[in-house]
């Protein structure tokens, strides 16, 4: 069991043993990076097919079913198509920035992978401020998106980029505050400490895993994080920056061929990495849900990947369900709901943390009740406020006929 769990770590150590002494550091770096560069693009390829199949089924269609068994080789056909397509650069585009934008997006998405622990002892770099690094690097995507929109010299691209900037900056705040809840609870910015803090279980027979999502603040934080992550990675229902039906494809309307594919890839890589961060922060990282049980033999990285897959499926499901938000709804939601909820959540974390020493009969119940009501009440009030603010009715025009 131990061998299967540590198979990649052992493999790397074994391979490093064959590398001459002076080359060991660069070899180690390459061996840490290469699997990330191989595995996640592969997951991306499969996700594109799975997403189309799933969306098809949600709409009572079949989805792609021509290439390979049940259409599961569609990604190969799509990949070949995008590679062989002509790369068109608009005549008036800022060519350097136009070229750099997909690269910057891809690099910032890939850099964020370096701090994620994918399994026991499986992380590219272990830095104390890993979570800070993650969000700092993640902010690079905003720059890339704006570079793409600005350099294309296309009004749709610029509109998309402006929407993207407005959206990403607005949602960066609740995203960080939601993550901050977990940071407060553990008192560390290191993702490995985060995972370590969620080990084991509690309750009768340790039936409930110690994941943060099974605490009141953790649940709310996780939901807030997932929503803000969807907005950060431009996923539906927050896909205004690339709204196909309004502004064609938003900021990458002028991209074709491999550059478009790079955008597409980087977007999905960004989604995976932010979902991975959610797994690390709230879903117990690579820990098994029932460590005492028969599933102890399943390797830690498999647990991590299956949790990641669940979140990605949830995003696909959401994409198949929810319509796109309007820009004012988006902003209202970010500033009037997400932000206050995230701030209140921080207070609840503090309450949760400082009631931990309570040690009388029924203390746990009181603690839960206090925290849940501290969260449920603002949720209801803020939510109803949002709902009551919608002004539906016949549209009036001030100037036109």
């Amino acid at each position, binding site marked *: 069991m131990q061998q299967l769990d540590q198979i990649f770590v052992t493999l790397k150590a074994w391979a490093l043993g064959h590398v001459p002494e002076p080359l060991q550091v660069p070899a180690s770096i390459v061996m840490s990076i290469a699997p990330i560069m191989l595995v996640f693009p592969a997951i991306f390829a499969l996700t594109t097919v799975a997403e189309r199949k799933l969306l098809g089924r949600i709409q009572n*269609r079949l989805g792609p079913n021509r290439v390979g068994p049940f259409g599961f080789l569609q990604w190969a056909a799509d990949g070949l198509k995008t590679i062989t397509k002509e790369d068109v650069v608009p005549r008036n585009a800022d060519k350097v920035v136009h070229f750099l934008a997909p690269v910057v997006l891809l690099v910032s998405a890939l850099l964020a992978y370096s701090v994620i622990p994918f399994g026991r002892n499986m992380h590219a770099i272990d830095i104390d401020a890993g979570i800070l690094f993650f969000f700092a690097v993640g902010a690079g995507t905003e720059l890339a998106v704006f570079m793409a929109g600005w350099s294309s010299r296309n009004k749709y691209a610029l509109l998309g980029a402006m929407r993207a900037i407005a959206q990403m900056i607005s949602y960066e705040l609740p995203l960080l505050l939601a993550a901050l809840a977990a940071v407060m609870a553990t008192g560390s910015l290191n993702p490995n400490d985060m995972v370590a803090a969620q080990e084991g279980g509690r309750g009768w027979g340790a039936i409930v895993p110690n994941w943060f999502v099974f605490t009141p603040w953790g649940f709310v934080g996780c939901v807030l994080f997932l929503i803000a992550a969807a907005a950060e990675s431009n996923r539906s229902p927050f896909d205004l920056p690339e709204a196909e039906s309004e502004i064609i494809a938003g900021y990458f309307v002028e991209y074709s061929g491999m550059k478009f594919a790079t955008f597409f890839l980087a977007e999905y890589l960004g989604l995976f990495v932010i979902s991975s961060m959610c797994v690390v922060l709230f879903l117990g990282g690579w820990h098994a849900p029932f460590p005492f049980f028969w599933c102890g033999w399943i390797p830690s990285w498999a647990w991590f990947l299956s949790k990641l897959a669940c979140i990605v499926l949830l995003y696909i499901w959401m994409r198949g369900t929810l319509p796109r938000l309007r820009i004012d709804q988006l902003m209202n939601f970010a500033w009037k709901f997400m932000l206050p909820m995230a701030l209140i959540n921080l207070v609840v974390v503090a309450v949760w943390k400082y009631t931990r020493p309570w040690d009388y009969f029924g203390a746990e119940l009181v603690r839960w009740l206090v925290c849940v009501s501290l969260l449920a009440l603002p949720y209801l009030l803020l939510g109803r406020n949002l709902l009551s603010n919608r002004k539906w009715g016949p549209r009036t025009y001030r100037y036109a006929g």
Partner: protein
Amino acid sequence: MTIPGKGILTGMAQTAKNFVGSYVSKDRMTTVQYPEEREPAHEAARNFPFLVFDKDPEAGLRCVACKICEKECPPQCIYIVMKRDENGKPTKQPETFDIDVSVCMSCQICVEVCPFEAIKMDTDYEYGEFDRFGGLLLDKDRLAKSNQYYHKIHPTEAAEVDARLDKERKTKEVADKAKAAKLAALAKKAQNAEKIAGDAKGEKQ
């Protein structure tokens, strides 16, 4: 009291139901996997005209090459040449009957003007060709389709046409019989007159 977020959960449940249902119930999936499976054409469907023949695809064509359809065709996509026998005498048969389906607009006017029920609308829609000029110019051989085929694609209409043709044939038969009888009577009369005349002659002699 409205609970915020309830609508989202309801929607998610609905899509989940769709997802599971698409694997369980066949009625949900309305997609027809076209090249492999085809839905039978609707009886009222119509696409391009074809020529009806009764028994023989060459001699049995109902078309008499009267060229009414050729003249009436709005986009002028029909071209007819009447067959002539060795003496140059026109027969009631088409030598050439071409329809350019790339020009045809499926208006059915040729069908409506035809007095012989010889041209009808087809339901076939697979006219894909690699040769865009010659391939889409359908000649007599490709246009000729049997009355059974017509019955298969438009059963109601074909039955009506057959009944009408039968009735016409019967009235014609009756008329022919009457005419024949009349002619026979006339002939008999003439014969009798001849006979009487002959008898009179004989008597004279």
